[in-house]
């Protein structure tokens, strides 16, 4: 999967888990939680949704690595690669 497609997949899942997030103003390196409303249940739904969408398995203890757009993109690139 190319980087742009992956980024779009992540943003689409983010829109599902946190519909008030604005992808256009998102800072890639800043944790999602510092930018818009997102609690632990939203975050869990975000990660579970990514697992389903991309057909990967993400262990619970790796979740914190997906806390920002850049973090998620990096982690999933490794995982999918």
């Amino acid at each position: 999967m190319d980087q742009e497609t992956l980024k779009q997949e992540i943003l689409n899942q983010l829109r599902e888990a946190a519909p008030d997030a604005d992808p256009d103003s998102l800072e890639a390196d800043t944790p999602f939680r510092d930018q818009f409303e997102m609690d632990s249940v939203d975050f869990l739904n975000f990660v579970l949704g990514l697992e389903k969408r991309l057909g990967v398995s993400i262990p619970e203890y790796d979740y914190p690595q997906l806390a920002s757009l850049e973090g998620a993109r990096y982690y999933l690139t490794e995982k999918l690669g």
Partner: protein
Amino acid sequence: MIREKGCPVSLVSPARTDDPWAAARAALEGLPDGGLNMAWEAADRHARERPRAIAVRWTAPDGRAGCVTYGALAERAARFAGALEALGIAPGTSVFGLLERGPAQVTAILGSLRAGAVYAPLFPEFGPEPLQTRLAGGRAAAVVTSVALWKRRLSKVIDGLDPRPEVLVADADGDPPAGTHDLRALMDAAEPCTLPVATGPESPAFLQFTSGTTGQPKGALHVHEALVAQHETARSVLGLTPDDVFWCTADPGWVTGLVYGVLAPLSVGCTVVVDTGDFDARRWLHLLGEERVTVWYTTPTAVRLLRRAGVDFVRGHGFPHLRRMFSVGEPLDATAVRFGEEAFGLPFRDTWWQTETGAIMIANAAGDMVTPGAMGRPVPGIHAAIAHKRDDGGLDFVHAPDTVGDLVLWPDWPSRFRGYLDAPERTTRCFADGWYITGDLARRDAEGRFWFVGRADDVIKASGHLVSPFEVESALLAHPAVAEAAATGRPDPVAGQLVIAHVALNPDYAPTDEQRRALLAHARKRLGAALAPREILFRDAMPKTRSGKIQRRVLQAEDPGSAAETPATQG
């Protein structure tokens, strides 16, 4: 002044010669000139006897960490009280805390109590509507906050409050935002209050908002005497001693974090661990070992998240110091109790209480055999029973074991709330035949253990926190597309319950995916993630009673998602 307006219910217990709380009362020191002040018991008392003992050890995900001795904590609380005095915040008025977890928050809590103010905690994840409702309902005289929370939350609602509260910013660092005060500068300049304001056992101490099915959230008012039961249960239920390192993961914006994260363990004199970060399986397990935590108090949601990480992953960490683990907030299912034994070598012990009870009432206490899935037994001094409410308002007691009914408690105990602020009729409704009606349904087995069954009302319990359907519905109804709205709980394997909104749209609006997302976004912006619905279900019409009331129970039963995995309550 924050006072209950004359509790209309007689709460005087029949004359009794044996006061089951006499020993617990005697265990507190009291103020030098008589009277009782929570901050004195939680800080000064230990500062005098063991000034260099560590009161708070805090740690942040970015690696920052620090500790505060009892001596320093008492000094900070005294300066904080001095700062409030300098600003003209009078004893008996309310000081709200909108703060991240950390040492500044502990200072704000104890400093407010020391100044004789009524401390009112706010959860940092509340959106503008819940914040506005609570600040106005609690008649905020001052709000203590951080730069980040000021920018993101408080600055958006503060000008809608009349009178506008004073705003104290804890981390302003010499450059407070316009319209706020630099708390540290005020504390440096303040004359420390060497002695707390002369509060008595019945002086108001804290105001904790909680949710009901109807109407705005209620401010449950507690008095300084509540510490008698809080201190006693910290010792008898949690088994805390001054040598313990205690970590309560609940946010002090909720009652558990305030009472058992700060007040009760500090009154015992142990070391309290404060983590400023959110749940992170790897880091939390590391902290348990690294901080040498001996007693841990957490939530079923955290336990269920840890279970997802797996027994082997947990076992891979070492907790040689951990002696006991407790859980609170919603029923702890038997598999979660057993997970504790498998992964940690210790069971999770369930405890039950609520905002109004002010302290743990029913528990699998330290030293007791743990019954997986049960709430446990009433703590000494607490009389609990199962009853059915009659139509005439009286109670019929259930004596047969394993029969479901209302869980009721007999007053009086020291930490009973003294009433809902400005809502005496709502306070009255909580009592029948002199008993306090908890709103929870439970059963008692033949051995005298209690088992949680559910809520008697429509309040939703999401991640252990009560969410009012009314608050959620009000936010949705403010959207032009919404004709009718109802909020219900859906069973969830991690959060216990999720908030689900059922919506009937106005003509001209279509139930599209885009509309669904727009409504979710609208609700989240107003309510914050903690209270907002996670899902919108569109309906053409709402099921209603003959009198026109929406039947939430019918909606809940018809929710296609409610067949999802339900946490087992027993077995």
